[in-house]
């Protein structure tokens, strides 16, 4: 036997049995592990900022533009002029459980954000490395975001599964919780957020929610559950704080520096889009292109003469001799320089919420005073509204809200639903209106994947 044999075999065996760690790989360049995320203030903050980056997704989602568009189409304020059948379905209110836009924008996206909020809450709660001050702030934000998502899920679909942990095993099989359960969790989250968030904003702009933002959402929730006193208090707290004020110049309401904005969501600087609303509502400059979304005659006729919002917030474009009106609150279709952010909460809502609550609390003068704050701003030369009949004042507030918040966050659609007027109003406005369309169908795929989910009636 050759002398080289044994060393060779030995070396061979040594080589192929060494390297015990041969199949351990380093983390990929773009990933860090969960414990590392909540190991310091900076990465924990980045995880919470991730919530907003999802909410402000450039493609548009329920929290960034599409609620304004699709819920606007579903109500009586917008008409779709294009041919995309999935968008058309919102306009005709014949929406199927397979509608991809409904599925991704209004179901999958909020639940994706809720998952991350839950993961953040769990991570923060179990972390001892994040400083208490930051932890409090971040927990408050995560709780608020979770409540915000559930709020839209609740209003679009009715009963929805209420998921408060990141445990996918149970989440995957969750049945729907009642609206009452979901609402009470929203309130609980908002109260928690209010207890943890500071009254000032964590950064220079208004891009992350503070105490007042959580309070604003709470006032909206109170309105829905008809806790009039709660609305009066929460709205009053914000109005009275002096932090916000109505812009007297209507053209400044939707700018980055808007004094009446409570919370804005920002699309990254690198994007040329300022807001999804501006980008999709404002038609292209070409003189021959009809706007995609036009305001309905019924909305346009609701404006009183002299209402500056008609001239300031409504755009007009004439194509082939026909003039089309489109939402023009946001003025920038696209520009690399940012002058507008998507405003999620505006002070006028609080005035009108409080007016409605005061009306129910039989404080008509208070209600009228709030209502006229908004009317006066829109029409300085007009007469203040006055009436001593509760239902008349209520109707006036409802009308004012429709005009103030047209094409904004589906306010009209959700208010009609909240006040039980959807059938009355839309059966007149829409040819194919059916009562079942008040709630959207639970996405069919989701039911297919989770046999415990039930469908809304009629679908």
């Amino acid at each position: 036997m050759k002398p080289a044999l044994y060393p060779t075999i030995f070396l061979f065996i040594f080589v192929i049995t060494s390297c015990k760690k041969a199949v351990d790989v380093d983390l990929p360049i773009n990933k860090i592990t969960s414990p590392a995320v909540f190991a310091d203030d900076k990465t924990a903050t980045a995880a919470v900022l991730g919530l907003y980056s999802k909410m402000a997704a450039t493609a548009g989602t329920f929290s960034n533009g599409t609620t304004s568009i699709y819920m606007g189409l579903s109500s009586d304020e917008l008409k779709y002029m294009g041919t995309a059948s999935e968008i058309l379905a919102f306009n005709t209110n014949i929406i199927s459980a397979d509608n991809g836009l409904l599925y991704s924008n209004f179901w999958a996206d909020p639940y994706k954000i809720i998952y991350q909020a839950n993961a953040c809450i769990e991570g923060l709660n179990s972390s001892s490395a994040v400083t208490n001050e930051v932890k409090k702030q971040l927990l408050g934000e995560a709780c608020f975001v979770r409540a915000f998502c559930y709020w839209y899920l609740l209003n679009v679909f009715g009963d929805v599964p209420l998921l408060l942990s990141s445990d996918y095993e149970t989440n995957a099989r969750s049945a729907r919780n009642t609206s009452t359960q979901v609402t009470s969790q929203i309130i609980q989250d908002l109260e928690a957020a209010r207890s943890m968030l500071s009254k000032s904003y964590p950064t220079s702009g208004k891009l992350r929610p503070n105490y007042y933002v959580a309070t604003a959402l709470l006032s909206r929730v109170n309105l829905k559950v008809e806790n009039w006193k709660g609305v009066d208090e929460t709205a009053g707290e914000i109005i009275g704080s002096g932090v916000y004020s109505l812009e007297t110049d209507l053209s400044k309401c939707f700018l980055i520096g808007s004094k009446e904005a409570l919370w804005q969501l920002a699309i990254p600087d690198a994007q040329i889009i300022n807001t999804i609303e501006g980008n999709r509502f404002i038609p292209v400059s070409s003189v021959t292109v009809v706007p995609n979304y036009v305001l309905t005659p019924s909305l346009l006729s609701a404006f009183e003469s002299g209402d500056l919002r008609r001239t300031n917030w409504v755009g007009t474009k004439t194509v082939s001799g026909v003039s089309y009106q489109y939402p023009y609150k946001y003025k920038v279709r696209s520009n690399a320089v940012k002058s507008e952010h998507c405003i999620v909460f505006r002070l006028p809502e609080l005035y009108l919420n409080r007016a409605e609550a005061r009306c129910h609390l039989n404080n008509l003068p208070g209600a009228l005073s709030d209502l006229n704050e908004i009317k006066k701003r829109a029409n300085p030369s007009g007469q203040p509204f006055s009436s001593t009949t509760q239902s008349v004042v209520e109707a006036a507030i409802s009308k004012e809200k429709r005009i103030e918040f047209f094409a904004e966050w589906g306010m009209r659609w959700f208010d009609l639903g909240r006040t039980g007027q959807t059938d009355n109003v839309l059966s007149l406005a829409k040819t194919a209106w059916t009562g079942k369309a008040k709630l959207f169908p639970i996405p069919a795929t989701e039911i297919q994947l989770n046999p415990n989910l039930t469908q809304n009636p009629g679908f």
Partner: protein
Amino acid sequence: MFIFLQNHTRKRVKFCIVPKFLRHIPIRYYCTTILLLLVSIATHAQNVTLKVKDRPISEVIKSIEKQTGYTTFYDAEIFDRNRRVTITTDNLPLKTVLDRLLSNNYSYDIISKTIVIKEKMQVGDLEKKIKSDIIKGRVVDEKGQPLVGATISLQGKQQITTTNSNGEFTLSDLGARDVLTITFVGYVPKKILAKNSSVVILTRMESKLDDVQVIAYGTTTKRLNTGSVSTITTKEIAQQPVSNPLAALSGKVPGLLVTQSTGVPGSSFNIQIRGRNSIAQGSQPLILIDGIPFAPGNEAISSLPSALTNGVTGTALSPFNSINPSDIESIEILKDADATTIYGSRGANGVVLITTKKGNAGKTRVTANINQGFTQVGTTVKLMDTQQYLEMRREAFSNSGVVPIAAQAPDLLIWDQNRYTNYKDELIGGTGKLTNAQLSLSGGSSEIQYLIGGSFYSETAVFPNALPNTRGAVNTNLTHSSKDQRFKITMSASYTAGLNRTAAADLTRYTFLSPNTPDFFTSDGKLKWLEGGIQYENPYRYLFQTYTANTNNLVSSLNTSYKILDNLTLKVAIGYNQLTAKEKKLSPVSSLAPNQNQIGTSNFARSEYSSWNIEPQLEYQKGIWKGKLDILLGGTFHQKKSYSESITASGFTTEALMESLQAASTISYVDNAFAHYKYQALFARVNYNIEDKYLVNLTARRDGSSRFGPGKQYANFGAVGAAWIFSGENWFKNLIPILSFGKLRGSFGITGNDQIGDYQFLDSWQAGIQTYEGNATLIPSGLYNPDYSWEVNKKLEGAIDFGFWDNRILFSIGYYRNRSSNQLVAYRLPYLTGFASIIRNFPALIQNDGWEFTANADLLKKDQLKWSIAFNATIPRNKLLSFPGIESSTYASVYKVGESLNSIYGFKYTGIDPSSGIYTFSDVDGNGSYNSKDFVISGRLDPKFYGGITNTVSYKGLELNIFFDYRKQMGRNLLYSMYTSSMVPGMLWNQPAIVTDRWTAANSNAEYEKYSTVMQSTADRVSLSDRVYSDQSFIRLRNLSFSYMLPMKTQAKTLLTGARIYAQGQNLVTWNRQRGFDPETQNLYALPPLRIFTLGIQATF
């Protein structure tokens, strides 16, 4: 055995056990009786008839050989072959004839089918011979190249050896007149007298059974293989004018399903070996090029959307677009456990071995091959003309009760009502030009062999502008052997640069534009978008938006071997493969519709795949007992890295600078990703071959993969394969004389599967797609599960191979059964969980079984005229055997136990509602609503059977080859495309003319539902129902090639040593149910596989 008896007869051995009553009979008598008895069994039917008068004995022996099929050996020194004899026998046993023929000075042995004539020796003689003879010999091929590892066995004894790296062998302790049998894979076995064995020349086998087959870490032949391996030769590849080597496999291999995704040059081919083994769809086979894992596998390597993208299959640019088919020597498809287990987990879904061409020793040879041709779209579905179309639109509006307005019905209200354009002709009716050229140089000596080659390929599209898919490649191959032939090193490297340019979208979809759509260009040559103030689609935008993919592919390998001992070799195989794809897609302002942001955008993406592989191996060969033992021990270290990045830049001041990032005002989207895969294994294989009759092959492997969490990384796999070549048994040969080959083989083994993507077990977060307030954001990468482990795949196979009439007809039937359990699934989850899926093991059991048939027949072999047929068929079955808890899982309405994974599981179509005119479906549970509870199984999408048939006819230098492939299957019909793309009849899109058979009040018996301008209320049920599936069986004349080898005479005065001209056609005719609808891509809006015609010439100098 006879030697034994003969020797003992002479020595009158005493240990013969003889019953007492026979003791009085002289021992010689009964020994002879037994001998005769045995001989008569062995030589049954070997009777000889001779009528010879005074002829040389050599002539008589030849006549005996001819009658019996036996071979005769004799020593010319001792045996006077010219001795003249006279003999007459009439059908007498061979032995009797030999007894009479040979004088008393000679004896003879009959061993197997060999007659050895010897001088009768005295006892002293014999001993002298045995002591003195040490035989040294050398085995070479016809060119004089040493054959390394040839087996030399001593007939009838247990002595066996193999040749060393110089082809040499040494045997001792044998007589000069003993007979050696020399065998080598792919060569005709030779029997030779030991003393004549100084140089033995083996000739190549002609039978297909003995063609070399590449297997894992070695080679074998079809004859000796214990596993299931199919080979596609370079000739079969060369006959097909295809640019993607996978295309050449279609219909050629039983058990392999090849499906083209679109006809756009450079697009993907899906390949699947023996069905879908995994719910998670990780059913890609392992692909190795010269033993190196091809880094991208068969995944799409492009990340930007383009015309190559098929939305239904999700595929795009094929990595095999970077492999030049003409560089390939053979492609082997390894299917069963015996063949694949040595690759462990990576081989669970079968293995594709690609072997590139190597240089051969000999004088320098230059081969040039050039062909040119054209491509075009074959028959397509007939569409409506303007009148039919406008009638549809009007009817649709009236059905919907909607008065058309200009914005929604410009075709009815604004556009010319008489205009008609055939967009098929305009957009996809072009003729693509094809050029393919190769030049190679090869040659060498016994110490160095080389091959240097280069090739160029270019194919233009059938779209209006001729965007070409081009590829240039060089390949080199160098082999060096040391003088003592102990050390050997082979280096192979090939580099391919590809440039794929195509449109930004497949224009086939836009052949469905309303036939009266206005002009696409304004008078000044710009894109026209508006007519009467209404915007319309302009398909030329996708030509203005260009897509370019630059691919570079380096495949290199270094194989070294060193013979430590004569029967022990150390080998190290090292390989590196790197493929990069750089893509750019430019969308200039001039290509944008008025309603789009008027900002030019460029997308850039880069994907890089690299893989290196180191495999040390020890190989030990030894003759043990009657057989040849071959032991392989080795290890694998494999790493794969993939990296991708993409950038979006926009806001260019000028379209000329759109490829410059500096010219962009905004760089808005930057993304990069990285994955690292490590894999380590230890493997062993023991192969034992007894007299080429009994073969056993054992494989074991221990695998570790980085795709699993700590503690789950390692697993063991193993397989056993065995074959019995029963035609090697004498009794069998006599039983069925026409049967020249018969083999029974079987295998069983366990392999694993780790095709689940990397890092899935980590609870990790990654950078968010967007920043917020200019700050980095983090988002969870996905749900994680640290506990999943290997999927287990058990493979069982049994097969029987026959050869008839000297193997002119080869026939084989095989049955396979793969069962995969512990399924690793991307378990689909509702979005409630925040994500669409999670990776986890599931106790589901999936079975793929089936029958495979192959037949090769040389039907005619008369003088120069030859006709042969090759046929293969596969009958596959896929079944979900069990899935505990499926009812409560997310798969409840996706799969059903007892049915195929590829079942049509959805609503049952129940005809058109006679009153409303829309499709109706069975409400199975009768509750009035339609959901997954109403799903029923109404068929399966797996092919019922498939295969191919090749006819080859040749006469002198002419050869005609006709190849059909066929498939019986259900598949997506054209309604699938329409309903999933929301382009149903009645909308602003043209439709196949057949949908004019639609429901109207007058035509309530229609095939299609009524026209509608919007999706009907049941429309989303349609795409979930069996309405969108129908028979998509086909027979395709896949390839026709004709070649003519120029007769040598005309070349006598030139350097030319061979020349061939040829014409080839691909995808020529398809016979299927729905004329014009491609049954392979099954996508109305994707370019069907193109017809290709080429004409070429190949010359060798």
